[in-house]
């Protein structure tokens, strides 16, 4: 998926680019509204992440200026208190907002929700055996049917799908799946892997247990 990140803090932008890159997304970074205009003129994006306070203007003005002709959904990154800023951003035409500092899993969840609401313009399907997986839309299609996966199962599947043939340790999976919830043991991973295996039955992909190391998805 291709993101446009409009954020003036270079360090945060770099971290976001890097972090979204880990999930296989391409992110263009614009430090100003002017740079964002330039990016929009030459490329198509699936989603725009827009900071509110920018050196050459207010992100919300950018929103109200573009709301009529911009197809791309916008998620506003705000640092303000929820009460004072939220309503304003949504009224200006943002699809959603997220408060800094944000949890990347939550950002991903919100992106997914926005894209689903907008009818899912994303084209980054991953073929898994006989099935087609769209991690952003959160769908797994197999033989004209959409398989019903819950959110964590989808996320687990995404981790495996992006690392096909690689061994993933329980610890790695734990961090991706539960980010920072307390009291989650590696047993929980076994439970979710078990469920996912059941749902993937007959699709043509397997999740193998590599004794002492973790799991590996093979087609």
């Amino acid at each position, binding site marked *: 998926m291709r993101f446009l990140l409009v954020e003036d*803090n270079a*360090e*945060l932008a770099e*971290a*976001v680019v*890097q*972090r979204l890159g*880990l999930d296989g997304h391409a992110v263009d970074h614009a430090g100003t509204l002017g740079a964002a205009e330039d990016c929009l003129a030459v490329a198509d994006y699936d989603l725009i992440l827009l900071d509110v*306070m920018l050196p050459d203007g207010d992100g919300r003005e950018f929103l109200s200026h573009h709301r009529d002709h911009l197809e791309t959904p916008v998620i506003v990154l705000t*640092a*303000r*208190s*929820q*009460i*004072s*800023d939220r*309503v304003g951003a949504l009224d200006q035409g943002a699809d*959603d907002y997220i*408060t*800094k*500092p*944000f*949890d*990347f*899993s*939550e950002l991903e*969840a*919100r992106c*997914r*929700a926005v894209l689903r609401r907008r009818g899912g313009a994303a084209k980054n399907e991953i073929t898994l055996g006989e099935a087609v997986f769209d991690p952003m839309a959160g769908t797994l299609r197999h033989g004209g049917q959409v398989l019903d996966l*819950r*959110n*964590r199962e989808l996320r687990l599947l995404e981790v495996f799908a992006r690392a096909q043939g690689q061994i993933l340790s329980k*610890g*790695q999976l734990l*961090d*991706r799946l539960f*980010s*920072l*919830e*307390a*009291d989650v043991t590696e047993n929980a991973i076994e439970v979710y892997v078990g469920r996912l295996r059941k749902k993937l039955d007959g699709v043509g992909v397997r999740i193998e247990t590599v004794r002492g190391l973790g799991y590996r998805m093979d087609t």
Partner: protein
Amino acid sequence: MSGGVSERWSIARRLTLFLAAMVAILALVSWYMVTSFAREAAGRTQDNILAASATSIAETLRSEGGEIRLELPYSAFSMLGALSEDRVFYRVAVGDEVLTGYGDLEGPEATSGEARFATLPYRDVTVRAVSLQRIIQRDGAAVPVTVTLAQTRDGVQTIAAGLSRQAAVLSGMVFVLAVGIAAFAVRASLRPLNTMAQHLATRGPSDLRPLRRQGPPELMPLVRALNRLMERLGGSLRRSEDFIAEAAHRVRTPLAVVRAQAEIALHSVEEESQKQTLRRVIRAVDESSRSASQLLDHAMVSFRADDLTRERLDLPALVGDVAEALRPTAQMKDIDIALDMAPAHAEGDEILIQNALRNVLDNAIKYSPAETVVTLSVRNGGGEAQVMVRDQGPGFGQASATQLTERFRRGDQVEGVVGSGLGLTIADEVLRAHGGRLDLTSNEEGAGACVSLILPAA
């Protein structure tokens, strides 16, 4: 500053009192002047009649064979009787020799050709007396004859008293009329001030537009001062809002950098102890950012609750919006948000009530185990509108509702959940400000908490 009481008196009362006092003084002065003019005029009339009568008596004096004779003319006394029924005394004397009349009547010292008047006591009454002297030739010698005529003053005083009474009645009427006009004038003059006050009082809490009303020129300095004050107030509100935004931006952006970097590091390090450290870093960042938002929310709630904007709220719509906003957060734990709505309306500040519900729902999601259901229901009945948030989490344990809504207080079932303890406090304050309440119940078996936001129905 002087005078505690008069400073607190209303301007209308002050002006009316001043004007009334002034009118009273004027009425008294005019009454006094009318009375003394009346007395003087009546006195002068009496003097003139006395002088005329005395003159007509003196004119009858003549010398006849060495004796001085006179005839008391009837006309002289009829003139005196015309004024009133007062008693009349007279004395005609040559030197100390009394020719006729009351020997003990002592008039003023008479000089030739000029009538002299005096008010003096005579036989237990006060009389007005006139003396005049006429020179009569007797045996070739000029003999001065003194005619003294006196009259009691009852008639004069009756006339003066009557005039004085009429003057008093007139002055009283003028006083009452003038005070009435003054009160009306004061009220009419102060009307622009009252209109302005009403106009200001009916303004919304955030309406800081300058006053544009035309008024009397005396009010213009006040209007200008008010406008300047509102401008300054608006400016400082904007500045503090900008300041909060700026402060939040400056605090949260570095936190976001730290969090993002820590997450990246968490994915690249292999060793479990390092991962633990990074998880702690991230949790600390989450905690401080959450505290910061809730402190800001709490400040905002306290600020807004003083001056609520009241609008009619469609509760199912509001609940739906909040649920939609938090659904992605819930989905991360595979928590379903179930809605069970009945039509209900309440009156209040939409942003505050949204925030209250958001805090409660956020709590429910945070404390619920994965793959459970949080149910939002809206009910209406008994004059109350109720939004219930039920979860399948650990419940509230032993803590009482009062304890839970205290600032920075958290329940005893919160092991390992990031929170600041302000969520329920904020919700509670919002509901109280709206005349509602927050109801906390927890299932006996420990299977879930139920938080009800109760508002007066509208």
